[in-house]
């Protein structure tokens, strides 16, 4: 018999962890001599108080949805993919190549193929660590970390030496053609009579990200492959006994993971910057770790966590703009979320299990 009801495991523990992270964050804000309540108010009004704020919140959330899903899929196979950042960087390269060298007639066609290109490049970048883990037993955490650094070097080289337009000093590609410009939420919502800020970068990729959430849910819980991934993640030996190939699952889970991380580039490269620049990912690959941990690797949880981190990101930018609190506050909050929901999980779980056992005994 379980020590705890399932809802407590899925809802209560993340919630308590989140509250603990929030309390500590508040203490940090107090520590640097600012008012936490005023800070939260400013963040809420800046990130959720206008369609402009929402536009940014959803834009960031789109990034985190992709990288969060990427980390989640790998997590189900008990593979800790820290390489989302590198995979997303390479995904950006895929998007840039598709958008720069093919004259697309319409953005919708371009988006489909840019997504494919991004997924392909991201997956290819994840394939090497996956292969090395599956076949040669190298630790995927270390190899994906190394691949983040290698990706940064590759991108730097490509942007400086190969894709930089003639006469430009900036290590970046040329601007994409007007035809591949992705419609923003403003352009999508205006025809149906909803006013949305023109300046905000949220775009149609958000809908792609939502579709990806549904697709991942279907994959993990409604297909044989998903079952095999979860079975492998639960018990490698059990899966082996059931005839599931560890090599196959490791490869497939990491390819999907890398592909999802790569697809993030449709949002930031194609939807926002409309050209590939250095450091276009802005750490979203790492935030995916926090998002997946908080969302318990479930697509709906990832969705909620991505919105929360989108809010934190945009709120943090507003804080940095209007107060002397630097944007790095978000990094601290992110660290605390990872710490409490990921590493100190048992600290919350232990006492909670005891409470539930005591309650049950009281009833019996």
């Amino acid at each position: 018999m379980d020590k705890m009801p399932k809802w407590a495991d899925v809802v209560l523990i993340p919630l308590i962890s989140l509250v603990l992270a929030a309390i500590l964050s508040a203490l940090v804000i107090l520590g640097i001599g600012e008012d936490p309540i005023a800070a939260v108010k400013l963040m809420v009004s800046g990130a959720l108080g206008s369609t402009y704020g929402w536009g940014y919140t959803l834009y960031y959330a789109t990034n985190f949805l992709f990288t969060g899903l990427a980390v989640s899929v790998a997590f189900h196979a008990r593979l800790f993919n820290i390489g989302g950042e590198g995979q997303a960087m390479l995904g950006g390269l895929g998007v840039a190549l598709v958008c720069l060298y093919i004259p697309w007639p319409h953005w919708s066609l371009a988006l489909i193929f840019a997504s494919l290109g991004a997924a392909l490049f991201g997956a290819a970048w994840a394939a090497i660590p996956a292969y090395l883990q599956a076949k040669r037993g190298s630790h995927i955490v270390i190899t994906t970390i190394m691949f983040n650094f290698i990706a940064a070097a590759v991108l730097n080289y490509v942007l400086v030496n190969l894709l930089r337009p003639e006469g430009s000093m900036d290590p970046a590609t040329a601007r994409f053609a007007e035809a591949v410009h992705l419609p923003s939420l403003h352009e999508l919502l205006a025809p149906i009579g909803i006013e949305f800020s023109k300046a905000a970068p949220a775009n149609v990729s958000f809908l792609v990200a939502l579709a990806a959430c549904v697709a991942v849910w279907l994959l993990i819980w409604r297909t044989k492959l998903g079952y095999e991934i979860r079975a492998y993640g639960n018990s490698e030996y059990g899966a082996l006994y059931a005839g599931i190939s560890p090599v196959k699952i490791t490869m497939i889970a990491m390819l999907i993971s890398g592909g999802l991380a790569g697809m993030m580039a449709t949002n930031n490269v194609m939807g926002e910057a409309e050209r590939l620049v250095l450091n276009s990912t802005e750490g979203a690959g790492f935030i995916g770790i926090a998002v997946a941990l908080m969302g318990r690797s479930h697509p709906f949880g990832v969705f909620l966590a991505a919105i929360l981190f989108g809010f934190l990101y945009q709120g943090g930018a507003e804080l940095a703009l209007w107060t002397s609190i630097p944007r790095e506050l978000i990094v601290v909050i992110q660290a605390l979320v990872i710490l409490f929901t990921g590493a100190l999980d048992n600290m919350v779980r232990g006492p909670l299990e005891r409470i539930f056992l005591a309650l049950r005994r009281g009833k019996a």
Partner: protein
Amino acid sequence: MDFLTLIQVLDSTVRLATPLLLACLAGLFSERAGIFDIGLEGKMLMAAFFSAAVAATTGNVWLGLLAGIASSLVLSGLHGLASITFRGNQLISGVAINFLAAGMTVLIAQDWFQQGGRTPSLFSGGRFEPLSLPFADALADVPVLGPIYSELLSGHSVLVYLAFLAVPATAWILFGTRFGLRLRAVGENPAAVDTAGVSVVGLRYAAVMICGLLCGIAGAYLATALQAGFVKDMTAGRGFIALAALIFAKWRPWHALGACLLFGLLQAVALRFQNIEIGNFVIPVQMMDALPYILTVVILAGFVGKAVPPKAGGEPYVKER
């Protein structure tokens, strides 16, 4: 390349290898005891900030060093709490520590100094000055050996010599003392150590704390000796290169020295020569930057000798099993 250039490159190799070496030995203690630590980067960064901040405020670099070590020890304690006491995931804890350090350093720096997340520049007294070995000046003019002695061996800060002395010290502690034997055993087979009546938790905490101490010195070296003050994200991936060196060295102290010198050399060469031409072929600077990471991946894949980590590494020890 002429002789003097060679000496200068080797000199900067030593400088750049020092923080790697300290962090690498730090990881060595921790991982030999079975605690994976990808938070080396974060501990170094935190120590770099606090050492620079205290050295800037007090004008005393030794107080700075102590503050750096203390801050690194706090993060080590956190890692121990998460991965030993609460048996959490060591990798996730390490990731969290890296982010915590990256955020907190800038946050506190901005609050204390209002200089955009950096500390004020350090002046004499607030920095570790280069030590001049005896007769360095007098011997400088002797051909070949003179420059080697006066440029390469002399003229480093005390922390450099400390780092290099830490190599034999580590080798002795790990392989020559009872503590070291137990520490290695706890990374291979904690149940056996437990059965022998030695505290697994105590040993692992000890290892994690030694790790914190060495990371603290590494961070202080970065901010108060290699550079004059703390700037945002100044560790710049050194923690991960140290981790790479550790794998390269297959978790052995003397090999760690070799690996760190190699990676230090790569950094020194990349710094000095941007693109290296060999005949018609140009090695781009980005290739040099990525080389330590590529080497690590190759090593990990077992193509150049197999790197086998301590057996119980990454696994929390559960007594009642």
